[in-house]
Each structure stands twice: as C-alpha cells, then as structure tokens.
C-alpha cells in the first residue's frame, strides 16, 4: 500500500568529518543531497523527490554551535538547530530579526530538528531565516575540495531554488557582523496558522542615528522566485529622517519590486495588497 511514510530508496552515507563529507560530495555532486535536520529532505522524499544518495551530517562532530562575541559577531554551525538559535539570549538581544524567524519557524518538533543553515541552503522563496539573514547581511562559509570559500548572502540566491553553492560544497557556517550602536532589526510574516509556511515575510536591518536612517537593508520572501532585497525602498530610506511621509513613500515603492504568484498558500492579489503594509510595520517595529 503506498504510504507517505515510505521513502523512495536511496543510499544513505554517513561521513564522520567535514573532510569526508566533502570527498563524498566531490564524488556524487548533484546526485547526492546533504541532510542536516532532514525536515526538508525527508518531506521532499515523501513527495517523490529524492537523489540517488543522501549524505547525512548526523555523525559529523563539532558543527552544532551558536557562538557570539561582541567584537566577532555571530557564528552559526551547520548543525545548530532552529531551537538552539531561538534559545540564544545573544541572538534575541543583538539580532531580533533572526531570533523571531527561528522562534516561530514550523513546530517545536521541527525546530528541534531543522537547522538555520538548512533553511538558507534549501533556498525556498518563503524561507523565514533566509529572509532575516538576507536583511542582516550574513556571510556563508563553504567547504569544498579546494578549501574554504566565503560569500555574502547577497550573491547566494540566484533564482527559484538556484543558488551559488557548488555541487561539491558543504555549507559549514553562517556568520553575522558584530552588533554596532544604532543597528536595529525586525522580522515579520503572514501565515494562516503558525505551523504554515509564510504567505509572505519581510525583514529589515537599519542603522539609525538621531532619527536619521544611515543604512538600510530590506528583504522579502514569497513574493518572487527567490528571497529578494527591496533596493529601491532601501534607497528611499537611506539618509532620511524616518517620518510618516517617508514610510508612505516606501510602502508605495514595494509594488514595483515584487512579482508574486498564486499558489496553495495565497494569491498574487493578496500578496500585492499586504506586502507594503508588512514592510512598513516591520520598519516601525525595528525602530521601536
């Protein structure tokens, strides 16, 4: 009897180190998928999408860390779960957008299994941590056969589920810059129930000094084939005193930068209507 708990057969590989995992990736390339928490890999399997091999990181030691220092910023290892990040007082205090995107992600059980790095690597346009980390200006560290490579998250999302990760690379860490005075952030999303994926989500990270916005990064998810930055809205905000008039202008600028579609979770019309409101609210929440 067909049942959604039966996964298609694949070869399960369990490397004991990052080096061994990279060797396997070099051999299998796109024929293998990496599995961290598995909350996406297994669900895709139940829907009939499975690669020839799955490389599980379960036995790779030393990747389950969330490290913070005031000068060095935040480092999140490839096996740090969503719950570990949500439970970190340093994350909550210094990177509220990331905190919220992890704390409301899925269910308590999936937060105990799923990873933040997996959320980004999955590159779903609706990924919640992906959206927050794009606004926060994260860096991604890959380990490949020729060593380490670090890229900005700005270069990572290329198109629908297409990313700058090479098939033989393992993402080992995501980094966030050290907190600076005046830097504020926030994340919000719209869902039917909390365990649903986002209909739309938005995150902002601003540097504010004396009521004037010095720098701005605004990200949105589920309104385009990939998680995007709203560069035009950022430009409107930069160098300005944050006022109602500016917020009105920013809301008005959102529509031309998004290309939402109808799908199971929402309609393009709804997404168009609500996106400007969500962006505005998220900016207001960030500046407090």
């Amino acid at each position, binding site marked *: 009897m067909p049942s959604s708990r039966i996964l298609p057969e694949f070869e399960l590989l369990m490397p004991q180190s990052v080096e061994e995992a990279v060797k396997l990736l070099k051999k299998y390339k796109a024929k293998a998928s990496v599995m961290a928490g598995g909350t996406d890999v297994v669900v895709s399997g139940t829907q009939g999408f499975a690669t020839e091999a799955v490389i599980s990181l379960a036995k790779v030691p030393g990747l389950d860390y969330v490290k913070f220092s005031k000068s060095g910023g935040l480092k999140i290892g490839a096996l740090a779960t969503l719950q570990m990040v949500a439970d970190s007082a340093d994350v909550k205090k210094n990177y509220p957008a990331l905190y919220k995107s992890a704390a409301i992600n899925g269910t308590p059980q999936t937060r105990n*299994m799923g990873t933040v790095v997996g959320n980004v690597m999955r590159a779903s346009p609706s990924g919640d941590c992906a959206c927050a980390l794009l606004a926060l200006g994260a860096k991604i560290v890959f380990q490949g056969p020729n060593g380490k490579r670090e890229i900005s998250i700005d270069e990572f999302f290329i198109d629908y589920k297409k990313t700058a990760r090479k098939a033989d690379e393992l993402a080992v860490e995501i980094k966030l810059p050290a907190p600076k005075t005046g830097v504020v952030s926030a994340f919000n999303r719209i869902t039917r129930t909390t365990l649903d994926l986002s209909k739309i989500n938005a995150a902002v990270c601003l540097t504010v000094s004396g009521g004037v916005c010095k720098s701005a990064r605004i990200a949105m998810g589920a309104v385009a084939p990939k998680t995007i930055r709203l560069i035009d809205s950022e430009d409107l905000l930069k160098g300005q005193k944050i006022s109602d008039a500016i917020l009105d202008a920013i809301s008005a600028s959102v529509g031309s930068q998004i290309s939402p579609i109808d799908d199971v979770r929402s309609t393009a019309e709804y997404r168009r209507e609500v996106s400007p409101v969500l962006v505005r609210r998220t900016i207001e929440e960030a500046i407090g």
Partner: protein
Amino acid sequence: MNKHPITLTINNQEYSITVAGHHTLLQVMRDQLDLTEVKYGCGRGECGACTVLVDDDNEKSGRKAIDACLALAATMDGKKLTTARGLGENGDLNAVQQAFVDESGIQCGFCTPGMVVKSTDLLEKNPKATEEEIRFGLEGNICRCTGYVKIVDSVKKAQKVMTKNKKKK
C-alpha cells in the same frame, strides 16, 4: 550496501538491529520493533502523532521532542529515546498521562501518545508554562477530536500535580 547496523535504546531497553538507510525512525519503531504507540498521522512533520523524546546534552532537561517520521533511523544510531510507553516509572502512568485520563483529554486516542510525550517535554522545560505557552508548545500536535480545551486542561492539571510532588520531595 544500504543496510546499517545500529543500536537504539528505547524506554531503557537496548535494540541492536539492522535498518535500511531510507527507512524512517517511525517506520522502524512500528514495523520492525512493534512499538505501535508511535503513531503515523501525516508522515511529514505536521501532526506530531509520531512525537518521541531523544536524549540531548544541549538541553537543560536532557532530552527534546522530535517527529519520528522526519528522522532516518540509521542517523539515530546510539541515541536514547522515550515513547509514551516509557514516560512513567515501572510501567505506571506519569503525571501528564494520568491528568489526560482524569481530565478527559483523550477521545479517540490517536493523537494521545504524541500529545503526552510533547506535554511532558513542555513541562520539563517550562514547569510554569502559561496557557499561551502551553498552546504554543503543542502547536506541532494535531487533535481531530477534542477541540484542544480538554488537552490544555489536562496539561494544566499535570502541572499542578507536578508542582505539588516537587514540593513534597
């Protein structure tokens, strides 16, 4: 080739078995080990019927709740797990299970093994959980019968009993 010899400790009993790489923990528990209290609802992390506890040193309570349908059995090699059957001592019901009985938190009973496991985890981590926190903590467990009110009542009752027992000790 795709066979993995593993050892799982479930409810303090050790099982040394061989599992297929693509089999989930849920599948192995139910079909290979006959631990049928772990239920199959959705098979994709939405309903929590398959919730089990896994020991984890990173946790204050020493363990955490996961969905057995989303874990590959072979990746759980060496882990200590607890199902609804192993919550109490010597086969007794724990305070949460007893409260579900007393407060009628059970109707058809299909969601119950997952509910009591998750509620135990919730109260171990947050003994003073408010109603809002209880509801948020049970968001990954779906019940088609009770409408949740009786379930929340059961968890609150268990909370009272557990606090009392702690004071006695």
